[in-house]
């Protein structure tokens, strides 16, 4: 009984409900003031899905069969969503022209947040065998150093936004969802002392507060929607940790691709 409860996809359903709520609010409401702040704060929800799936992939990477099955399901979900969207736009026909349009559409920029996340999932799946090796290979000291580099870079990025300067540093490999994934993996794998845990908790609360303040009072608050803003990053990782309560992602039955498909189509209908 206990093992069955352990396999219930509760976190995934929770994340998807939150995400749908967020997408609905974002698309339908024309809010200002605190409503806008709330939507801005909830901007971290889409990252939860990628974090969940990323961690899941990293954990099952060594079980080749299971890993490949889940990856293929993701790829199939992506191909299916693109096909459904294309058919809804131009109709279906068995011809070379349709096939060409379909291939072209696969390379087009994803127009919805759901589809964009689905692409990211596929990239995470492809790179998981490489990145999953890094953390176990590092010593505790090295893990702290990597976390410092990640934090330092995102702090620098934030300083660039607020300082109004732009050092054109580019091609940083963790300036994407992999920065979040590595950051979270490091966060849960480092042996923190009690004092450090307290400091981290204070840091998390401070990040939530600062994100709120900036979204409410900073004149160009739109910049805050950038997921690489350091306070938003800390808030997202902290919220995700609280949501999953440190529970291992591999202990749940994975229903994300199916839910993803539903969300993408629902978002398109909105």
């Amino acid at each position, binding site marked *: 009984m206990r093992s069955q409860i352990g396999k219930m996809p509760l976190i995934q359903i929770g994340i998807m409900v939150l995400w749908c709520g967020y997408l609905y609010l974002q698309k339908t409401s024309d809010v200002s003031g605190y409503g806008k702040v709330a939507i801005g704060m909830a901007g971290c929800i889409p990252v939860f899905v990628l974090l969940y799936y990323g961690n899941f992939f990293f954990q099952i990477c060594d079980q080749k069969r299971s890993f490949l099955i889940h990856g293929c399901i993701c790829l199939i979900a992506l191909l299916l969503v693109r096909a459904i969207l294309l058919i809804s736009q131009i109709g279906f026909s068995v011809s070379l022209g349709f096939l060409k349009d379909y291939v*072209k559409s696969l*390379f*087009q920029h994803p127009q919805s947040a759901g589809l964009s996340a689905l692409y990211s999932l596929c990239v995470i799946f492809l790179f998981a065998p490489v990145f999953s090796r890094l953390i176990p290979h590092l010593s505790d000291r090295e893990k702290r*150093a990597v976390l*410092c*580099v990640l934090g330092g870079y995102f702090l620098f990025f934030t300083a660039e936004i607020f*300082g109004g300067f732009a050092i054109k*540093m580019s*091609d940083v490999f963790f300036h994407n969802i992999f920065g979040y994934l590595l950051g979270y993996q490091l966060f849960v794998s480092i042996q923190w002392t009690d004092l450090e845990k307290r400091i981290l908790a204070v840091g998390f609360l401070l990040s939530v507060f600062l994100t709120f303040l900036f979204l409410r009072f900073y004149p160009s608050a739109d910049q805050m929607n950038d997921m690489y803003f350091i306070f938003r990053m800390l808030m997202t990782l902290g919220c995700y940790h609280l949501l999953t309560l440190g529970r291992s992602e591999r202990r749940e039955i994975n229903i994300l691709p199916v839910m993803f498909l539903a969300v993408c189509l629902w978002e398109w209908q909105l």
Partner: protein
Amino acid sequence: MKKYLTNYGILRIAACLLVILHHCINYNSAFSSNETETAFVLVIDNLCMVCNGLFFMMSGRFALAEENSGFGEYYLKKLKAIYLPMLFVQTLGYLLFSKLLFGEPSVHDYFTRLLHSDLGAWYWFMYVLLGCYLSAPIISRLIKSLSTTRKKYLLLLLILFTCANSFRECLQPYLYHPEIPFMGYMVYFLLGYLWEQVGFSERQEIAALVCGLIASVISCCEMLLWPGANPSIFGLCPTRVLMCLGIYLLLTKGLQRLNGRDRIVRPVQMAASLTYFMYLWHGYYLEWLQGLLPVIARPGAAIVRIVEMFLLVLLLSAGTALLMKTVLNKLTLFYKSNREKIAKVASRGFAKGKGV
């Protein structure tokens, strides 16, 4: 003591010369008088454009191979060796060439430009490299943690995404999808090191070399017959990657036997040590000579101007680099031999300043 790798020294010199030649072509291609001359200049420029990829491959090869250094130590080393000299040259260059490049110099203008990476268009490379160096200690550990099969898999992913990027840009140009970790010049940064780590056989390397040669022909045909059809032709494109890999292998593997030959090592080491300062200075001289060299309207004028400019820039930047290197070496020696005295004077001055 580590043995100097002459083959990599030669690669470094070649890449530096190609950068200067490419920039000279950029400045003068408009002076072509007929179609044949234009086509010739285009082909040469296309072949020169492997320079960026080669520099990134070489930087990655050495940055990722560094062993047993801590993160702080590594960053400090790069700061001292690369970014402090760059800041020095940028400051000096601003003082000397500001009127030519930016208008009336001022402290405010200097800092604004510095904070917006706007002290010379050719410095873009150094800022992209900054991102690569920042990632290097992590990537180095990542690659070391991988088995040979996974290294091959990573190499395959790089090739796959390079092809996908080129294909997508041909279909519909737009920015990279941001979730792909190794894109842009990071692919080149990884390629050289990863290739050596995987350890391909001689036959496979010869095959890669032949592929590079074929890629050069395809790329030149693309330039001449379908200009503009492939927007990624100079960047992250399979043909460009193969061309870079081909030249990289040709020089590093083909010239491996030169390593340890004393007669060649010294001049190569000397010339290679100047290339960084030459790169930093060449842009200023290009700007200066652009307005100085006469424009003559006759067949072959563009080629003559390119050659003239190339030789002059080479001479001037090599001279400046030599001068800077000599002064820096003497200053370093002076500091090393008088370290205690300097510390004493500094502490005395500090105490005076505090009123002790």
